[in-house]
């Protein structure tokens, strides 16, 4: 398997050297084991700092919005779909962006890695699809496939859908259909059970908005939670306001979400917010056969209509 990091460094360095792009959005090595820091490379020297591994959990398309210069972006499958969405929603132009597409075999779930370690992780190494963590008590290893984030385990589009510099062979897709088991469990609950479930799910939310801020879709100049004339959502920890925030945000992402998992990766309280967005994406898929960000030729499902749209509600 080729070394992604080496290739990314070379490609980015070349793009910056020959002036094709002004900046490259990627990751550099983090200051802690098991995390990488999103990084804007501006020079060929900067490009030498770029890295890629299975701990690149944030969606780099989040850093693309509103950029005015020529920008290259290292994009895994889901990220690339958000680049497409950005182009469709006119956050950037197609000409501006050079996608360095990365066929992705998934990112590790930070909590599964923590569980594997069973203590403070002092070092994390990844080699040939195996993750090894070192704690004060010793070392433990596991196959990456056992540690995947759930969105990665269920991923339908591991290969970038838009790719200007395909440096690596595509990886085999591991799923052909959506896995909505978690959503279906909730759908099977009666209203009282569902209410209790969501109450519990959101009970530890601190309204830090890490989920919203990590999401490439959330780029509104003034988010609805920040409106003050009139004020739509309270700012305290009243469960009504917490629920309003999460459900409304999920609806705003409906038909646009690529299930990249950045929201859950960012959440400091480990809240499974994808249970909300997942339901809406399942809905879009079932009703309109829609998956977000696959091509720049089509507008998002909730942005347009056709005469073939199902309309059972008015029959």
């Amino acid at each position, binding site marked *: 398997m080729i070394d992604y990091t080496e290739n990314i460094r070379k490609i980015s360095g070349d793009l910056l050297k020959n002036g094709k792009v002004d900046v490259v959005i990627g990751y550099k090595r983090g200051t*802690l084991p098991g995390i990488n820091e999103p990084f804007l490379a501006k020079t060929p020297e900067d490009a030498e700092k770029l890295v890629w591994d299975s701990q690149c959990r944030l969606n780099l398309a989040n850093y693309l919005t509103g950029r005015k210069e020529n920008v290259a972006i290292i994009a895994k499958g889901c990220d690339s779909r958000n680049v497409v969405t950005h182009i469709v929603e006119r956050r950037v132009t197609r000409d501006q962006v050079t996608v360095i597409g990365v066929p992705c075999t998934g990112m590790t779930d930070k909590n599964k890695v923590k569980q594997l370690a069973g203590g403070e992780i*002092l070092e994390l190494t990844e080699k040939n699809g195996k993750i090894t963590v070192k704690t004060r008590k010793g070392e433990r290893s596991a196959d990456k496939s056992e540690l995947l984030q759930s969105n990665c385990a269920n991923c339908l589009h591991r290969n970038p859908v838009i790719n200007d510099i395909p440096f690596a062979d595509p990886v085999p897709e591991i799923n052909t259909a959506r896995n909505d088991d978690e959503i279906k469990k909730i759908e099977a609950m009666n209203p009282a059970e569902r209410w209790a479930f969501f109450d519990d799910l959101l009970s530890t939310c601190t309204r830090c908005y890490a989920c919203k801020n990590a999401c490439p879709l959330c780029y509104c100049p003034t988010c609805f939670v*920040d409106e003050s004339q009139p004020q739509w959502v309270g700012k305290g920890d009243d469960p009504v306001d917490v629920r309003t925030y999460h459900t409304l945000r999920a609806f705003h992402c409906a038909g646009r979400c690529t299930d990249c998992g950045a929201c859950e990766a*960012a959440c400091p309280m480990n809240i499974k917010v994808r249970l909300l967005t997942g339901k809406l994406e399942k809905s879009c898929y079932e009703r309109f056969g829609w998956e977000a960000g696959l091509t720049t030729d089509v507008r998002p499902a909730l942005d347009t209509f056709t005469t073939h749209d199902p309309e059972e509600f008015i029959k």
Partner: protein
Amino acid sequence: MKILHIDRASWDKGVLASAETYQLTGPVKEKDFYEFKDLKKGEMPDMSGSDTRLSPKALVFPKSEVMITFSTDPNDPECNIMKETKKEYPKRAVIGIRPYDARALQLLKLNFDNGDYQDPYFLKAYDAITFVGLAVNQPSATDFSTSCGTGPFDEKGLDVLLVDAGEEGDYFAKIITPKGEAWAKAAGFTKEAGSDAATRIEGMKKAAEDQIVSTVAFDKIAKKTILELFEADHWESTAFACINCGTCTYACPTCWCFDIQDENFGTKGVRIKNWDSCMTGLFTMHGSGHNPRQYPYQRTRQRFMHKLKYFTDKYDQGIMCVGCGRCVRQCPANIDIREICKTMNK
């Protein structure tokens, strides 16, 4: 200073005895993480959970706190007259707080008792608490508390310092203040430790401090001018990864920014103090629409300038950080205050 020895059985018995006259507060596991919560009758603090997810600052500075109540009913003779919400501040024993978290509360106090004004909600809550701290035997790799004027065995801000006495569940208890003495008495802890206790504690303290691998230096930051640090050209790239979510500010034991909001329920209303974050877009937004910190990197810069420079200059108590490492561990984008301190301290 008196040092007591508390064996496991006495610990359980004594803590519950002190519950007769103190509201006990200690680490409680809530879903994935520990937080400091008021303990129910008969409930013991989980002493393995002292390293809480969010800092214990909510004990004196709650996430959301009603300060003022009022009626907006035009038929009420007291309509629109705002009154302090009556609250009880029963005597409390907070058990198992880490030394640097207790030190952090002292730094918070500098803000809430600032020489001209006093925040009664903070101060009454703070004064009602007896802090029974638990020393850190094994500092995390992200613990840089010794660089920040505190440390794994620091006594500042504590009334009692508990140190693992070796045997499972046994403690040495260093009685630091009369408040600590009163709690120990209420718990019935009277057995004085052997004459070697002080030396043993010193030894454990040194061993813990030796394990600290993370350090920060801010001597040069102190010498530079504010404008020099503020106008340095690294900020946009330093802050690139930051998504301005505010997780750091909520987890941080020394962050104190808050918002004041009114909420109405029919003809009754309240004025609430909520945690707020300088990282958010609205924080400095003027009514006119002008925002002096319009760009996210300006807000990221503000946080670090405040913590590492403005506070240092203003209070002469070192930096506004106790080195607990929560922000470093919890930041989704790996913004690391230690790295930023290094950059500013060049």
